[in-house]
């Protein structure tokens, strides 16, 4: 009797299962740690509004790329964009989800947040160990009237592989041909040994070292600089103007970005033109398969970002992220319609 009952139960689950899963109730993503706080916020609000849960593992960009290639998640997330060739090779589509800013932070006695002025070239020289003291003529010439101590500079970088390092070194390589030649751009690089360097694990590691090592300079995402009350600097932008790291400056950089001429949305936002632009801004990207084996799932992923683009701007700004401008969101949705298809070749995004 029991056996019969079990058999019936089993049979009924087999029959019912596909039907009950037809509506997607969970989507899975993995990747970059940098946008994790805003994705989590969006996911919470989206779950309340639409009843679909997002399960996002912030395991790092490299991990996100590996996971989406292994198809263990519905979307991957990466701070460094894949190139058009890499995307085509893997059959992936890519779009930016949100933007952030990287700021230099310092610990120099007597200098307040937003007081010190730095240029990209100078930042590269400091990290290359060419400028070794805080009262170096190169720093002093940009900062007339600021009292600079005669103190060695300790450069703090990320010791773990990180999209933040990728964007930071990309900026240095753009403004300094020597950096491009001697060091290069990557999530981990061989930091020049001429500088007195120190590696911290994660944004919090860098923030910790800078906040308690006199004479140090580091780079962190803006949100960390703000929440740790670190002394950020001004930066000279492409237009030759000095700007402070503020939401308006980040938005100016984002507004000047030329997304329409970036195949596969491969665009690194560093060193954007415009008088008010902050020079170190970066988008973080989402990767989905162009051909979705499970159209419902694919649609659910895109719907989540669609909803977040429409309703998540305030949440993003509250966490010091820069939402994608509406014009870019329109481009992204056009790309979804054109590129992301189900097995029959129909667009999954409706």
């Amino acid at each position, binding site marked *: 009797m029991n056996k019969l009952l079990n058999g019936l139960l089993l049979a009924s689950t087999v029959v019912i299962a596909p039907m009950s899963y037809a509506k997607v109730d969970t989507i899975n993503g993995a990747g970059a740690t940098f946008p994790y706080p805003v994705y989590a916020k969006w996911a919470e609000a989206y779950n309340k509004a639409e009843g679909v849960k997002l399960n996002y593992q912030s*395991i*790092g*960009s*490299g*991990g996100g*790329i*590996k996971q989406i290639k292994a198809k263990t998640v519905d979307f991957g997330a990466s701070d460094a964009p894949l190139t058009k060739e890499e995307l085509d090779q893997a059959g992936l589509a890519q779009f930016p989800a949100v933007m952030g800013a990287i700021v230099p932070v310092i610990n120099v006695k007597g200098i307040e947040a937003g007081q010190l002025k730095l240029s990209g070239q100078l930042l590269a020289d400091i990290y290359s160990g060419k400028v070794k003291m805080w009262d170096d003529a190169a720093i002093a010439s940009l900062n007339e009237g600021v009292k600079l101590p005669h103190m*060695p500079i*300790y450069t703090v970088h990320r*010791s*773990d*592989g*990180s999209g933040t390092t990728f964007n930071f070194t990309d900026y240095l390589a753009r403004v300094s041909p020597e950096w491009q030649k001697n*060091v*290069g*751009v*990557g*999530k*981990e*690089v*061989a*930091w020049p*040994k001429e500088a*007195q*360097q*120190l*590696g*911290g*694990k994660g944004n919090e*590691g860098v923030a*910790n*070292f800078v906040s*308690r*090592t006199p004479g140090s300079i580091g780079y962190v995402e803006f949100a960390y600089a703000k929440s740790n009350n670190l002394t950020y600097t001004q930066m000279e932008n492409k237009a030759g103007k000095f700007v402070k790291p503020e939401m308006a400056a980040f938005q100016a950089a984002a507004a000047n970005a030329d997304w329409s001429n970036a195949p596969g949305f491969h665009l690194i936002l560093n060193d954007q033109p415009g008088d008010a632009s902050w020079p170190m801004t970066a988008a973080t990207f989402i990767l989905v398969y162009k051909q979705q084996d499970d159209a419902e799932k694919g649609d659910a992923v895109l719907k989540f970002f669609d909803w977040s683009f429409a309703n998540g701007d305030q949440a993003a700004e509250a966490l010091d992220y820069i939402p994608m401008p509406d014009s870019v969101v329109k481009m992204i949705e056009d790309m979804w319609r054109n590129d992301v298809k189900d097995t029959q070749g129909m667009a999954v995004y409706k």
Partner: protein
Amino acid sequence: MSTLVMKSRWHSDTLFQRACWSSAILIGVLLVSILLSLLHGAWPALEKFGFGFLFSTEWNPITSEYGAANALYGTLVSSFIAILLALPLSLAIGVFLTELAPAWMSHSVAAAIELLAAVPSIIYGMWGLFVFAPWFSEHFQLWALDAFSEVPVLGLLFSGPPMGVGLLTSGIILAFMILPILTALIKEALSTIPNVMREASYGIGANRWEVTFFVLLPAVRSAIFGAVILALGRALGETMAVTFVIGGAQDMNTSLFMPATSVSATIAEQFNEATNDMHISSLLALGLLLFVITFAVMAVARILMRKRKLS
């Protein structure tokens, strides 16, 4: 009826035996397959860099040049510092607990030390970074820089920026972490010495100091050595705590205040973001090296412990 019972007893007996056998074999299979998969993964790097991998200080993911020397140096030096600091301390604790302390105290101190072993290593790392490193920087490094700057060897060892992290700090944190195992093994070894030996030594007029140093410790010499090797095995592979306090710089310096890296820290920090094949392979080669070193260390410990039992 009785044959049935016997039959089922026979069955359960063989079943039990086979289950035990296969569990034991499973361990061996697991070990060998880990080694093989490490070797397989590390092969491209080993093939490309050869023996030079051991000696090269280059670690550049951009140019795809990798060498293990920095990481090996950091691992070996920080583990050596840990042994250097932890051994005298645990010898003293061991002697105190077995020879000097009243029973109630011996029990509670031993329990406290065992609790140290139960603290997860991430806690040691966080504590090391947020509590110990700032204190160490302010109260030891600044003083040491000043005090030893003129002293020949020490001046070289205690130089560099007083940032509170680096080789020395990770050695000290590791010392805390291996203290429990070292103390437990030494205490156990001392307690196996028959009381006759103590009584005879005191009988010929030796004082406590002489009994401890000339009779008891020499009697358990090889056990102490074995304990050191076991502790070394733990220190070599320790990852999380070291990652936090070693300073994360691919560099090799004589100064103990300078940031460095270790084999396990390099793997932990870079594996997540390594997408390039040669990078992954080099990290696996580092893992293979650590595996081989730890295995060799453990094998030495085994041999020494066995010798002691025979003699």
